[in-house]
């Protein structure tokens, strides 16, 4: 096994753990934006699409490169924009945002919600 492959495998395995760890405490209300956000992140395939398109010199490669870049760009741009649109709706209510934040935190700590003093 080459050194490079070994490195890549290391990144791969560690990324699995980070990926699971980093979202393990997501509240239900953010499931949809989170799915959409991760969806945008795998648009990183655009990097791969650019790599294969850059050196395109045969008709087959040109078609493959063109389609791959187009699809990947749609993924990246659409993904980030639609996620932003979703999350935009949570702003513009600064008074309530703080309370919701407190409620979320409290819910994770203990299920007793009735005593929220901020209400």
């Amino acid at each position, binding site marked *: 096994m080459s050194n490079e492959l070994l490195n*890549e495998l290391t990144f791969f395995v560690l*990324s699995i753990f980070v*990926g*699971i760890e*980093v*979202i*393990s*405490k*997501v*509240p*239900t*209300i953010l*499931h*949809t934006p*989170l799915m*959409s*956000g991760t*969806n*945008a*992140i*795998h648009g*990183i*395939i655009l*990097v791969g*699409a*650019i*790599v*294969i*398109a*850059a*050196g*395109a*010199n045969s008709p*087959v490669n*040109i078609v*493959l*490169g063109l389609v791959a*870049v*187009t*699809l*990947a*760009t*749609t*993924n*990246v*741009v*659409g*993904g*980030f*924009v*639609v996620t932003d649109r*979703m*999350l935009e*709706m*949570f702003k513009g*209510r600064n008074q*309530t945002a703080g309370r*919701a*934040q407190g*409620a979320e935190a409290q819910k994770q700590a203990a299920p007793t919600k009735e005593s929220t003093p901020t209400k």
Partner: protein
Amino acid sequence: MNTLIELAYLVAAVCFILGLKQLSSPKGARNGNRIAAVGMVIALAATVPQRHFTTAGVIIIAIGVVIGGAAGSFGARMVKMTAIPQMVALFNGVGGGAAALVAVAELLSFGQHPAFEVALPSVFSIVIGSISFAGSMVAFAKLQELMTGTPITYPGQQVVNGILAAAILGFVIAVLAVASIPFSFISLMVLALVLGIAFVLPIGGADMPVVISLLNAFTGLAVAASGFTLNNFALIVAGTLVGASGSLLTKLMSDAMGRSLGNVLFGAFGQTRAATAAVAGKEGRSVRSGSAEDIGTLLAYSQRVIIVPGYGLAVAQAQHAARELADVLEKRGVEVTYAIHPVAGRMPGHMNVLLAEANVPYEQLKEMDEVNDEFKNADVALIVGANDVVNPSARNAPGSPIYGMPILNADQAKNIVFMKRSMRPGFAGIDNDLMYDPKTLMFFGDAKDSLTKLVAAVKAA
């Protein structure tokens, strides 16, 4: 130069991780998305200088970015909030397709006998990317109602899927062990596309969010595999992050429905028949329906009203009308809350997004666990376009497809007003006993029209 690029990829990876982290808290979510977007820009910017571009390469990249950028931003800006799930499916599918095509191009460049360590991730990327592409398109078609949302099953379906999977495995071995020729990996791609369609067809529309989440994780893994082929650190890390977090999210979603992932994906077989039989057996029972005035009066003289919004509210764009009703009720001193089932709408959190759009205050939105004990003190449970999430058969009918799913205790309220377009069963395709409950008043019609009528009736009461 190379070191700089690798460092830039490292920065991008950190951005993705921080972005994901922030996306999981309500306060930082929007920022998180932006941080991830910055990471994306860094990764892309780092990719450009290391390449030798042919003229054709520059042209196709420019054309692709312009078309893709326009399509992506147009689609994302124009889509109605109710149609978000299918839009996510679409964006996910094209990502999977791109991953498969990148792998095809790489295999072409490697010649007939590529090293095993690049050939394996390439075929993996082709298969998984293609399944994700085709599956996402079917999910899109089901949610967009371009095709029926009910599970499509036929005799021998599992056998057909098994044969497809076996044929794919055969071609995988052919590419890896015999020769990597275009015929083999194009066949592989076609078979994987067919399997992607066949895999999603028997899954009902209500389960599409889970499927989309799963396919989202698939695309992530396909992208990671492409990273191994291209020796690209950014693809490996970002793809794997999505693959791992997407898998966890898929599990969280099926948990919210009280079902195992296996049951969601393969549960349609044999179950639909039992469900239809159950529906047929219950025909001929009568329901009570009320007029806008009856219900308006009932609401106006209540003390506590719990609104249970569902997908019907979303389809009718009735979130603003619902808020208006809540406002007039509150003016009369009625206490109004919204009970949000984890899978209300078509994705977990979907209903919160919609109600937030209508400026419903956060503190009125209550999640299932905190609101379920309050139903017994509520004078009216007002069910607007929801169905399966209040269906008691989830509690007491072991044969039901939704048996075991946690539901809202709307049946414990003193009165139940069930607003629905018709008696048609919900998304899961099963009858709802709650509609026949003696405490239940049905109010038929489009959710938005009905709510507007109720607002007028409450004002008049």
